Each structure stands twice: as structure tokens, then as C-alpha cells.
């Protein structure tokens, strides 16, 4: 029945019939992921009034506005700073933390630490955003409480209300949440390194630090490279954390591209401009994606 028909088709056009395996994937990804991206470019060349539903073509006006909008500068700075700090904590620091954990003798303790550090990553950014919002509260929050306990009240600020500190407060929360995930991935990568290499190095008299630098570091380079690109790409797509904690305030000092897009499109009814911001995000993440592709291809050639 089905076998008969499929073998007929299979003999005639084996490849085409095999398309059925990926048909749904192609369909759903093409329709919901690719098409909106293309559509987004079209929307960015218009001015849309969500109340009247009118659509007027304005060419590249929205992009001209992108170039002169000071908040875009703030957003780009915030995203970039997010990227840099995330790489420091979630790539480099996570690597060293994973190295420390993997160096422990007891397997039980290794999995305990990996699991404990991972807990924040399992919790949604909304919950952690709300949690840290409370932690940063003046007077009632943990942070101020700690500072008071250690007689450091003068260091206390209105963390989320001060434009100078707000974005850093958000980034700190993000690192708390993400480092466990990166540490886990690095642990996995480190585990793949054969023990013999370490034993040999030890015979040669190398201490632990030396072993880490000359064995572990080079052999996890692929994971490191991938993590850097994933982290940077993620940093330019940040939305949840900022939205829940400050919604881009105070005075737009914590805006990132994602929240500014939302503000323009949904609060200021300017869908066209929001789409233009979307195109900017797309260009940046595309660049990162291409970098990732180039990097993995290069590794495969060398490996």
C-alpha cells in the first residue's frame, strides 16, 4: 500500500520523495521565521498608524531617523557593553570555573556544583528580573541590607533608578543567571579531554595551572569560540531582563535595541520605525552568524 507507492516514487525520483522528511521543517521555518524577516524590511519603509490602519510609503526615512536618533546610540552602547561583560563572565570566567570543578576528585561534588550553579539558568528571566528588582530596592532589598550590615551604607545607591548604575545592575543580574549554563557547557567540553594528556604532563613536572594553560585551554578552543559568538549574538537580542526591571528607563538610559523597538512599535505607535530598528538588529545578528559559520568552517578544515 504505502510501500508500493513509495517504492514507485522512490525509483522514479528518490530525492524528491525524501523531501517529505524536511517538508514541515522548511515550511514552518520559512513561513514564520524567514517571511517575517523579509516582511520587516517592507514595513520599515512605511509609516503605519495603528489606529487608522493607514500605510504610507516613506522610503528610507526611517533609516535616516535611525542614524540621527540619540537613543540608538545609547542602545548600541548598552548592547555592546552587555556583549563585552557577558563574554568576560560567561566565557572566560565560566571556563575557569569549569576547570576548577572538573579538577575536583569526587564525581559527586562535581555534579553537585554543576547542578547548583545551573539553577539560575533554569529559572525564567522574568522571575530573576523580578527577584533582582527586589534585591535592588532601596531599604528593603538584600543589596542595601548587606551594605548596611557591613557598614558600607555610603556605597548604597538607587541601583535601578540612577542612570549611571541601572544598566550595570541589569547586566549583573544577567551574569548571575547565565554563568551556570556556560560553566556546564565548558565542563562538558573539558570532560572530553583524555586523561592521558594530563598524566603525561604531570610526569613532565607540570603543575595544575600549567596543565590547564597548555592542555585544557587549547583543546577547548572550539567551545570557547562558539560560546563567544553565541554570547555576543544573545547580547544584541536582550529584551526580557531590561523590560522587566526598568522597561528601558530611567530616561531611556537602559534602552537596548530590543526594548527600543518595542517602545517605538507598541507604545509610540510607530511600527515603521520599529521595523527599521529590527533591520538593524538583523544586520548585527547576521554578522555574528556569518562569523560563526566562518569560524566553524575554518576549524573543521584545520581539524
Amino acid at each position, binding site marked *: 500500500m504505502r510501500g508500493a507507492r513509495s517504492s514507485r516514487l522512490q525509483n522514479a525520483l528518490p530525492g524528491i520523495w525524501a*523531501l517529505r522528511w524536511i*517538508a514541515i521543517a522548511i515550511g514552518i521555518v520559512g513561513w514564520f521565521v524567514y517571511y517575517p524577516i523579509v516582511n520587516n524590511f517592507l514595513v520599515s519603509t512605511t509609516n503605519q498608524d495603528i489606529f487608522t490602519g493607514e500605510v504610507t510609503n516613506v522610503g528610507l526615512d526611517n533609516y535616516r531617523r535611525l542614524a540621527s536618533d540619540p537613543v540608538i546610540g545609547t542602545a548600541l552602547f548598552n548592547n555592546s557593553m552587555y556583549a563585552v561583560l557577558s563574554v568576560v563572565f560567561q566565557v572566560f570566567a565560566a571556563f575557569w570555573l569549569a576547570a576548577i570543578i572538573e579538577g575536583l576528585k569526587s564525581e559527586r561534588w562535581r555534579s553537585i556544583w554543576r547542578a547548583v550553579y545551573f539553577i539560575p539558568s533554569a529559572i525564567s528571566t522574568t522571575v530573576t528580573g523580578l527577584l533582582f528588582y527586589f534585591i535592588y530596592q532601596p531599604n528593603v532589598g538584600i543589596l542595601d541590607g548587606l551594605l548596611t550590615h557591613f557598614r558600607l551604607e555610603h556605597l548604597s545607591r*538607587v541601583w535601578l*533608578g540612577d542612570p549611571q548604575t541601572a544598566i550595570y545592575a541589569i547586566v549583573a543580574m544577567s551574569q548571575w543567571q547565565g554563568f551556570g549554563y556556560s560553566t556546564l557547557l565548558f565542563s562538558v567540553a573539558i570532560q572530553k579531554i583524555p586523561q592521558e594528556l594530563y598524566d603525561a604532563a604531570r610526569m613532565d613536572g607540570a603543575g595544575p595551572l600549567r596543565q590547564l594553560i597548555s592542555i585544557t585551554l587549547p583543546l577547548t578552543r572550539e567551545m570557547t569560540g562558539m560560546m563567544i559568538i553565541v554570547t555576543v549574538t544573545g547580547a544584541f537580542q536582550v529584551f526580557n531582563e531590561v523590560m522587566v526591571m526598568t522597561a528601558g528607563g*530611567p*530616561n531611556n538610559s537602559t534602552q537596548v535595541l530590543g526594548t527600543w523597538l518595542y517602545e517605538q512599535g*507598541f*507604545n509610540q*505607535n510607530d511600527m515603521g520605525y520599529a521595523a527599521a530598528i529590527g533591520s538593524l538588529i538583523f544586520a548585527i545578528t547576521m554578522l555574528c552568524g556569518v562569523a560563526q559559520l566562518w569560524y566553524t568552517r575554518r576549524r573543521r578544515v584545520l581539524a
Partner: protein
Amino acid sequence: MRLHMPGLTAVVALAASLGWTGGAIAQTTVADPAAPVEYSGNLKVLTKFGTQRLQPYFVEIAKAYEAAHPGVTVELIQEDDDSVKGKTKTLVASNAIPDVFFSWTGTWGGNFVRGKRAVDLTPVIGPDTEWGKTLAPAAVGAFVYDGKYYGIPLYLDAKFMGYNKAIFAEVGIEVPKDLDGLLAACDKLKAAGYTPIAIGNKEPWVAVHYLGQLLAYNVPKDVLEADFDPATATYSDPGYVAALDQFRQIADRCTVGADMNGISYQAALQELSDGKAAMYYQEIIEFDNSANPSTKLKPEEFGFFRLPAPAGAKGDPNALEGAPEGYMISAASPNVPLALDFMKFVTTPENGKVLSAPPYGQPSAVIGGADPATMNPAVVGGLEDLAKASYLIQWLDTVNHPKVAAAWLSNLQAFAGGSMSAEDVVAQVQAAAEAAK
């Protein structure tokens, strides 16, 4: 089979989704007073009564209505003062406006009228109609656009300085008569160890409300109204900078100053209810929130006064910041007569009395819908004071074009944080008005 079905559906849906119909309606829908009401179906209502205290109001009304009319289900989407703004915008953007939805007056409501999303209610709620006669004329009149009536007012609101009578008595101060008097009182309160005025500007409209009242005092009414319209806006009156400077004085001498940007308005209100702060600038509809049987501040100890005007102000010292708030009917609703019938039920004098009394304390716009015997005396007093105002200036962030509103909100927050000058704030607002032309 698997290849064909998804393909076909995809093509059809793709074609549908490519259409830019966007839900624009060609003509304004007008309410028909003669249309018969069909008591069946689902009615979606977007309210602003999402907080714990206010939630039961519409829930009870919905239950009563459903009991009286089996076959009708009322679905409530309850948001609070802040989230209703974002929620409404999302609903509009997705063409999913509920049958009955909350709206402020001014440009906010005007957006729906302009987009032909609201039903013209003149034939059913105009001053000569049966229904219209049951509502306070000024309240219904606040929802007039292009000479037509679009909104159903539910309650009146105005901004007052709530204060703790016990603290005032303890420190020995009287209700201040002008701005300098207020500032002097603040100094005394600070010396006595109290926070003079609690303020939380994490939600930036809080500072904007202060400024609105100060603008009414410092800038003549006709200049203000011209400036509210981007086409005629100039923002050149010196009263703007004067008002900003006065706000700065209040912020510095009476409040925590720049820290206000990290505190939410609810936390600030709690400071008053907990007896830690002496004053809190609030709307009448928040009176019952500040002082009720379950808070430390008891209703007998709660008093209010208008934000004192600066001596010699160039605007109108008798103007009061406030506006009615109400509901509109969506033009896209499949059952407009039912929606109207529901709102008529909501605005009966009995339901009005419930709304005006504690725990809700939202003074009803229905004539005869406020019974002083059941209401919080402060709310009664506030209503009387409201009636004496020369005119009501609406909230800056709802009366203005969204771009100008956004400019006020974010720049005032920076001003409050001390990182911007008064002249710069006005310049930014002016630029936003230019861009909004």
C-alpha cells in the same frame, strides 16, 4: 497528503496574511438607539480596575449582569493604571480591541476616534437623551470630539495632596496657603524626622502629574491649549521653565530628590499609609487606598488640599488637574447594542453609589450616584473641591500626542534625577511636538 495539505493551507493563509487590510474602517460607526438588544454572546471588557482593591467591582457587576441575562458571558480583562496603557496599544496593534474598553480623555481617546475605532454615541448618550441626562454633563462633555460624544464617563478624578493630620498636628503646621508655605512646612517636617512628601517616580507619570498642575498655575489656559496641538505648539511661554523650577524646589526640599526614580508609586503611597511620610500627591481615586481600616493611617487622620499655587503665578491659580475617566465602545464589536446595554447597567445610580463608597472610592459620574452617607468624607470633600475649580487640566501624558507625551515622561524623569536643565526639557518637548506635526 502530507506534502499537499500543508502546502494548500499555507498558500491560502499566506495570501490572507499578506493582505494589508489592517482593520481600517471606512466610516465611523454610529450607535443606533432603536437597535434591539440581543442578550446572547460574549462581551469583552477592558478595565482599569486590575488592582486587588478595585478588582471585585467589575467582577460583581459582571456576575449580576450575567445572572439577569443568561446567555451572555462577560469576559473581563482587568489591568491597572500602568499596564492598561501597554495593553491597549497591543490590542489596537493586533486589531483585537475589546467590545468595551477603558479610555482617558484628550488625545488618548482621540486616537480611537481618529482611527474610527470608537462608536459615535451621540444618539444614545447626548445631552438630550434619556441616558445622557443621568450623567454629569461636564463628565460626558469631556469625551466630545468634533462635536460628537464618544465616551461613557464612569467616575471623576482630580489630583490632591493627601496628608496625615496627626503628623501635621504633632509638628505644628497648618495646611499651606501657597507654594512657599508648603516648602517651609517641608523644612519643619524634615527637621522632625519625617519624610515630608513621599514620591516614587519609577513610573514617570508621577512627576508629570506634578508638572501638569504647576503648568496650569504658571501658563495661561489658552496658551496651554494651543501648545497641546502640535500644529500650533510653540512652548515659548516662560511659565514652562518657571513650573519646572518650582518642581525642582519641591523635589529638593520635600522629597528624597533624585532617588525618586528608583521607587515605585505604590511603595511611595505605602509610606503615607504606614505613617512614615506626611504627604503624598495623589488622585481622589487613591484616597481610599491611602487610608482605610486596614492601614496604619486611619481615615479620620487623612486630609487633603490642592497643591498650593505659587504667589503671583501667571496662569490660573484656581485650575485643578483632573479629568473624568470612562469607557468607549469598539466599532469592531459584533454586538454594539449589548455593549451599550451593559454600560447602561454599569452606570445606574445604585452601581454608582457602590463605586463611590469604600472600598472603591471612585466618585461616580452618575447624577445621584454618590451618597455622602456611604462615602469616605475625604472623597466627598474632594468632589466638592473639584466642582469649585475654574477648569480642569488633563494629565499631560494622555492629553498630548504620544510623541510629546513620551518626551515629557522621559525628560522629566531625567530632570527629576538631576541630569537635565529646565530649558533642555522644554526644548526636547518642543522638538517632539515638531516631529509630531
